């Protein structure tokens, strides 16, 4: 596998860390500096502060050059400071803007910008020389400034969102400079990248790509697109974790800055800023596991984790890159904020809290709740003066979405739905009056819910019921609303069958299904996953729901599904997956690790009703205990006999065809 190759893995962490600003550029440097043992990075750890971004990192530039930067070197703690408190970054930025050296160095910014623009063609040497140039043009002697910048870069990489908000504030205060500044910023990091090239070729390649991306994004700034919120990417990889962190910190800032200050330019800029990282995130999500191969990396990860104050200490090795479950601390916090929600529409807020508390479960339910909340928000929306509806509303939706992500990582289906909404907004003609635009959006949302979910379910049921014969024993796992509807419908149609409901801790939502089916008079057997191999002997069909189907035919579904499918396959029982086509995604995933969602670890350590089984009660104190509560798993297509969608019954190999042929249609209905 490509992503397991050593060099890439080395470069990966940095990419991930870059998070927001200029993906790829800053983090590598950080990474290098942070791993002192790394043979390549023989430079003193202190180098990190001076940071490549600013150009001169001792690490990357030949000996003569960095001597000036050496004095700047600040030990790790300092760096962490910068990272941890973005406010610091923010302040420094303002100072930066205000300080004479910065306002004047137009030459520097220009240089950086130009470099930025032609970076794709840039060769390592080139990059270095340029970096040198920049460095020289740059008043290297002003150590203070360097430090400040390092702080900014660090902040950008670690808690990107917040740093960017601050940047936008800065932009607001100095609109004329902001753009340049940004360019310079990017450029600086770019320099760093160039310099780092000397060390690792792979790294540089990745960076170059990232840079290219960033560049493209800036160019396409004006263009609207759903890329801003690639929710699908949200659950994937460490980046989301970062984002999450950033966002957690962010809301107050955003509340302050975004709505009140916001003029269009700011919001659009923000979007621009948002975009490259998303893209980058999507493409370069690094293999999380690699870092744990080597102790230093783990060390580093731990150091990094300091930033995330509320994260569980005992994270499970392979899953550190995922957003950790932090709802417990968040819920009361959010609840208290309920009445001071300036920017958040109440309905969105409500849905968010419901996600958080687990009151809304299931892909369709979550998606519908979100869409209805958006619909209400759109209904109550009015374009602020001097703003374009298309842009402002998109930004607004994005902020809602990021709020929802805070509450719970998005599901893939929700990602698709959001993409749909954004597309619809983007396609609104400029001339359309606001009221009309709003009503058209609302009807679009209604249509999406109706066509893609409600009717699709009906079609799926019609298809699926043809596969139920009299005398069948159907097995299902957990609670899937489509499967439930199917079983009820089949019963109504008069098919004679029996249902085996397999369930598992901690959710035990199979009991809900059991309750409903028994109430309908359907013959049911209820068992837990542990008994699957025993019960499978008598089963003739397995019907399962799915959170998503990926384009290699992989079924992404509630944890335990893969087990059921595998056992069924071993027993030669056909496995039928019922999944609406709007949940299909073009991503490919090979394991359950790189993208998943972590649930509350406490839930699995506590056994309700068993007072004597409390051995794990004080688990937080046990250092060598890690609890893993995964939400999803991945079922390889080999175990799936058929996928039943609103487009008919398909083999798993046809999912990409549906994705390819109907993506457009899904987006534009």
């Amino acid at each position, binding site marked *: 596998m490509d992503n397991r190759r050593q060099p890439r893995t080395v470069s990966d962490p940095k990419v991930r860390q870059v998070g927001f600003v200029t993906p790829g550029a800053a983090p590598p440097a950080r990474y290098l500096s942070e791993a002192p043992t790394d043979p390549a990075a023989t430079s003193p750890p202190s180098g990190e502060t001076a940071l490549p971004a600013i150009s001169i990192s001792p690490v990357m530039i030949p000996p003569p050059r960095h001597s000036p930067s050496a004095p700047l070197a600040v030990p790790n703690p300092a760096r962490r400071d910068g990272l941890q408190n973005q406010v610091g970054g923010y302040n420094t930025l303002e100072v930066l803007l205000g300080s004479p050296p910065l306002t004047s160095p137009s030459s520097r910014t220009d240089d950086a910008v130009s470099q930025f623009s032609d970076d794709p063609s840039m060769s390592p040497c080139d990059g270095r020389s340029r970096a040198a140039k920049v460095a020289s043009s740059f008043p290297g002697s002003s150590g203070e400034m360097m430090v400040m910048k390092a702080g900014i870069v660090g902040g950008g990489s670690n808690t990107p969102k917040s740093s960017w908000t601050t940047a936008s504030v800065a932009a607001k205060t100095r609109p004329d400079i902001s753009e340049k500044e940004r360019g310079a910023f990017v450029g600086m990091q770019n320099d760093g990248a160039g310099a780092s090239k000397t060390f690792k070729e792979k790294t540089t390649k990745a960076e170059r790509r990232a840079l290219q991306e960033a560049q493209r994004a800036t160019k396409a700034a004006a263009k609207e697109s759903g890329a801003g919120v690639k929710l699908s990417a949200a659950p994937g990889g460490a980046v989301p974790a970062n984002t999450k962190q950033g966002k957690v910190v962010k809301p107050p800032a955003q509340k302050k800055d975004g709505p009140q200050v916001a003029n269009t330019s700011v919001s659009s800029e923000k979007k621009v800023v948002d975009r490259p990282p998303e893209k980058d995130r999507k493409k370069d999500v690094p293999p999380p596991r690699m870092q744990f191969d080597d102790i230093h990396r783990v060390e580093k990860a731990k150091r990094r984790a300091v930033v995330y104050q509320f994260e569980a200490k005992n994270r499970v090795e392979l899953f550190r890159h995922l957003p950790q479950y932090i709802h417990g601390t968040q819920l009361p916090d959010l609840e208290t904020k309920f009445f001071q929600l300036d920017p958040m529409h109440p309905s969105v807020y409500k849905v968010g809290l419901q996600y958080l508390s687990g009151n809304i479960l299931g892909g369709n339910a979550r998606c519908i709740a979100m869409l209805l909340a958006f619909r209400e928000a759109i209904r109550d929306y009015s374009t602020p003066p001097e703003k374009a509806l298309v842009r402002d509303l998109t930004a607004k939706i994005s902020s809602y979405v990021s709020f929802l992500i805070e509450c719970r990582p998005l599901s893939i289906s929700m990602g698709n739905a959001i993409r749909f909404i954004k597309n619809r907004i983007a396609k609104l003609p400029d001339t359309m009056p606001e009221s009309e635009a709003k009503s058209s959006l609302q009807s679009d949302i209604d249509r999406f819910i109706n066509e893609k979910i409600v009717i699709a379910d009906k079609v799926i049921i019609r298809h699926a019921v043809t596969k139920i014969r009299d005398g069948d024993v159907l097995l299902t796992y957990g609670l899937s609303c489509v499967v439930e509807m199917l079983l009820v419908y089949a019963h109504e149609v008069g098919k004679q069958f029996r249902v085996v409901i397999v369930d598992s801790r901690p959710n035990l939502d199979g009991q809900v299904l059991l309750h409903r089916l028994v109430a309908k008079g359907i013959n049911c057997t209820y068992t837990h996953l542990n008994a699957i191999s025993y019960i499978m002997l008598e089963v003739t*069909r397995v019907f399962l729901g799915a959170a998503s189907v990926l384009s290699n035919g992989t079924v992404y579904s509630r944890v335990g599904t893969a087990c059921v499918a595998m056992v069924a396959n071993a027993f030669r029982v056909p496995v039928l997956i019922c999944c609406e086509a709007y949940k299909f995604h073009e991503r490919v995933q090979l394991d359950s690790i790189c993208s998943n969602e972590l649930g509350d670890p406490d839930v699995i350590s506590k056994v309700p009703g068993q007072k004597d089984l409390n051995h794990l009660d004080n688990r937080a104190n046990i250092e060598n205990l890690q609890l893993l509560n995964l939400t999803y798993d991945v079922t390889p297509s080999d175990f799936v006999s058929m996928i039943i969608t609103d*487009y008919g019954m398909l083999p798993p190999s046809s999912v990409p*065809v549906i994705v390819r042929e109907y993506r457009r249609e899904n987006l534009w209905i």
Partner: protein
Amino acid sequence: MDPNPKPNHGISAYYKTRAEHHAIISGDWLAQAQAATAAGHPLEVPPASATALSAASKPFSIIDEFNHWRRKPDLAEAVAAIMALVAGIRSSDATTMMELEIELKKASDALKSWDTTSISLSAACDLFMRYVTRTSALEYEDFHAAKLRLIERGEKFGEISLKARRTIAMLGQDFIFDGCTILVHGFSRVVLEVLKLASSNRKLFRVFCTEGRPDKTGLGLSKELAALGIPVKLLIDSAVAYAMDEVDMVLVGADGIVESGGIINMMGTYQTALIAHSMNKPVYVAAESYKFARLYPLDQKDLEPALRPVEFGVPIPSGVEIEKSARDYTPPHYLTLLFTDLGVLTPSVVSDELIQLYL
């Protein structure tokens, strides 16, 4: 003769037709049919016009028309249905497009219900409907122009279907190399065509024919092949595993190709494919694209059974059941490639093609 033969209860009409065809099939006859196909206009006007004439006197019956075409041994049932449907359009006295479409739909339903066990028949009817009605012709102002366009399209479809075998033979013969041994199960006209073309291209190969109980399809095929000078060996059906060591590839036809990419074919195909798979021999399927059906059987019993009488030659003790099913389903997992007139496909492409045709 019964002008409108309903399939006898318990015996698949599809297999009855095939049996009739096999009884009279001969190399000469195939050669003639070949010539007719090559000549370009296989859609001999006489029957159609005759029907058109007779339509004035008596109501047009799609089944009659179908039976007329069906009697030609070289015509697959599906192609006969297509021909009949084209004739149906031609002789229709509908005056609006909608009316015509409804009429066509009725005709195709009638054909499908004539023999519900034939996969290729219903698949071809469906495909024809898609192919013919999915055209801009429906927006023509002038009904007659539109109707002509439909007929044209229908005829084109029929022609494509007729030429399909030829195309498949061209594609398939590339896979036959000198000195190879091919195991063939069942009598498939497409397979015969492939072997024939290969042999006329001076490829040297030998063929193992399974006996093909109960209707002895292997005997018919071996006769044909022997006439072409191809070395043939007959095996009893249970000797497949025994002979598989020597075999380089398995080549079978198909009654229908289903959405999963698997095939429905004469009883015994599944076991042959299983054995071949377990011995790492490629299994090729030669079949026309009009056999692509929107079916998705999950297992053997998930099909409408096509029944066929089985003769054991000795009296069967009372109380003993006989498995009369005439075909089985081979999952895509055991197939290597499909030779179709759309090209040489992997099994998973079938679903893609079907999605593009039907959705």
